[in-house]
């Protein structure tokens, strides 16, 4: 059974993983693109069969196109609709799922088609268990976007006239934090509530420099304390990463955090509490004060 797939893009063409998933099901691969024309052109050169685009958005955010995208995709009666797990993309996927009355599955590790329908394996309830779900009828999936696909054959971009809903961007303020792509970092140093003050991040930055690693954190450090940007937060609703090496420093290792780093090849844990759950999921365990161990480790790496 082959399945015709639509991919929904809300301004970010980093959908390599979605295209691969759609291709694996053997049917046609179409993409509905909201955003600047350059995004549609990038997608049109990414080895897909069809691209529809809803015109230059100007100051209109992607969310305002929710109903026109849902109408356009539903009219094509897709078997599967995919979107990357990003805020605006989720809005367009949700609108389309509603129009199709299709279920939505997230944290999906595989999808196949058999005679009974689509069969998806997904991680559920924050990663404590996995389910195999069989769906008859259309299905909407949230997937990690993956890289911007490389150019191959180019298909024409079909422009569909669209009347967006009433939302306008009237002001844009840049973030005070530098952006980071944790997913691409081979080594990551994660910091948690064991760090006492924001100034102490200097210790962690020094270790990250010595280890050629990116700095990441558990949720409270980015949300609430605001010591680091939200894109550095690892956990169930944050980044899910698979680096070669992960240092969990001053992180207790609750499920909500660990689910984001379980794919790391090697995990080092430093914590004062010998009973911290992080030690159950670490390869190298150091029970001690991070304020003594981190500078020593930085020195040893130099």
């Amino acid at each position, binding site marked *: 059974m082959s399945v015709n797939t639509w991919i929904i893009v809300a301004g970010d063409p980093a959908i390599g993983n979605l295209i691969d998933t759609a291709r694996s099901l053997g049917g046609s691969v179409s993409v509905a693109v909201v955003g600047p024309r350059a995004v549609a052109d990038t997608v049109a050169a990414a080895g897909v069969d069809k691209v529809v685009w809803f015109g230059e958005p100007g100051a209109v955010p992607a969310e305002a196109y929710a109903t026109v995208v849902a109408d356009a995709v539903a009219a094509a009666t897709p078997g599967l609709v995919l979107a990357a797990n990003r805020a605006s993309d989720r809005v367009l996927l949700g609108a389309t*799922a509603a129009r199709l009355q299709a279920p939505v599955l997230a944290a999906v590790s595989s999808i196949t088609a058999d005679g009974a329908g689509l069969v998806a394996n997904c991680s559920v309830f924050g990663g404590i268990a996995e389910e195999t779900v069989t769906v008859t009828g259309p299905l909407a999936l949230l997937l990690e976007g993956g890289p911007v696909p490389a150019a191959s054959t180019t298909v024409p971009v079909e422009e569909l006239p669209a009347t967006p809903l009433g939302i306008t961007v*009237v002001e844009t303020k840049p973030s005070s934090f530098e952006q980071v792509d944790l997913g691409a970092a081979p080594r990551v140093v994660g910091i948690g509530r064991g760090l006492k003050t924001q100034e102490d991040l200097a210790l962690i930055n020094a270790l990250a420099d010595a280890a050629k690693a990116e700095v990441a954190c558990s949720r409270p450090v980015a949300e609430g304390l605001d010591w680091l940007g939200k894109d550095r937060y690892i956990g169930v609703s944050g980044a899910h990463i698979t680096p070669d090496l992960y240092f969990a420093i001053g992180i207790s290792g609750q499920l909500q955090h660990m689910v984001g780093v379980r794919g790391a090849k090697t995990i080092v844990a430093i914590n004062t509490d010998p009973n911290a759950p992080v030690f159950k999921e670490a390869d190298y365990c150091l029970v001690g004060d991070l304020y003594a161990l981190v500078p020593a480790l930085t020195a040893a790496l130099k």
Partner: protein
Amino acid sequence: MKIVVAYKWASNPQDATVGAQGTVDWSRAKPGFSEYDPVAAELARRLADATGGEVIGLTVGTKRVDATLARKAALSRGFDRAVIVADDSLEGAGSTQLAAVLAAAVRHIGDVDLVITGDSSVDVGSKMVPTVLAGQLGWPAVAEVISITGQAGALRVERAVPTGTQVLEITGPVVLAASTDAAVARVPGMKDILAAGKKPVESLDLAALDIPAAAGTTTVTGTSRPDLLTRKGQMIDASDPAAAAAELVAALRGAGAL
């Protein structure tokens, strides 16, 4: 302004136990007002107080979402009243089904200007219900919302985006999902809990709501425990930091991790 807060009465997976076959046992996990929903309730209360509006708490789920404890816990969060759809046929309902029931309840409430939700639910956490709810209503949704000001039909909403924040002007009804740290929610006091018992609650009959049929069937055909990587669990004596650091670096180099 008529503001609906769509909240969830749910358990934290951290407190659930998972059997060898991946079946999840929630019996020892006490349900509560879902982790991020107090932020939504707080934003709604502040906006209603600033504009002379009304805040209606709305939830759907099994019968347990309509228990006295659940009602009081919700109504102590600053809602003026609550609307509840409690039916055991909603056990295990997915995002699309829950959103369809929420949408039918929002239509039943009538003349709603704004629905506010938390960032994600404590149990499922896919952040999809607000977006599908908006889709069911034909409204837009905006997530990662930091602040909401203005009037019905002329809302000014600030939301976080990867590059910073954007201020949006929104002219029609909308579903807004609050960022986890958009507001520090008040902790309900004894006065709030006592007052909660006197606030009106409307229980809606699921069968009487106009809910579109699902396009197909969704069946869980298997469960399993997550396949965790086997970890070495090697203890390194940290009593001498310099020696511990040297031993760790040597071990990492030896294992090819550095």
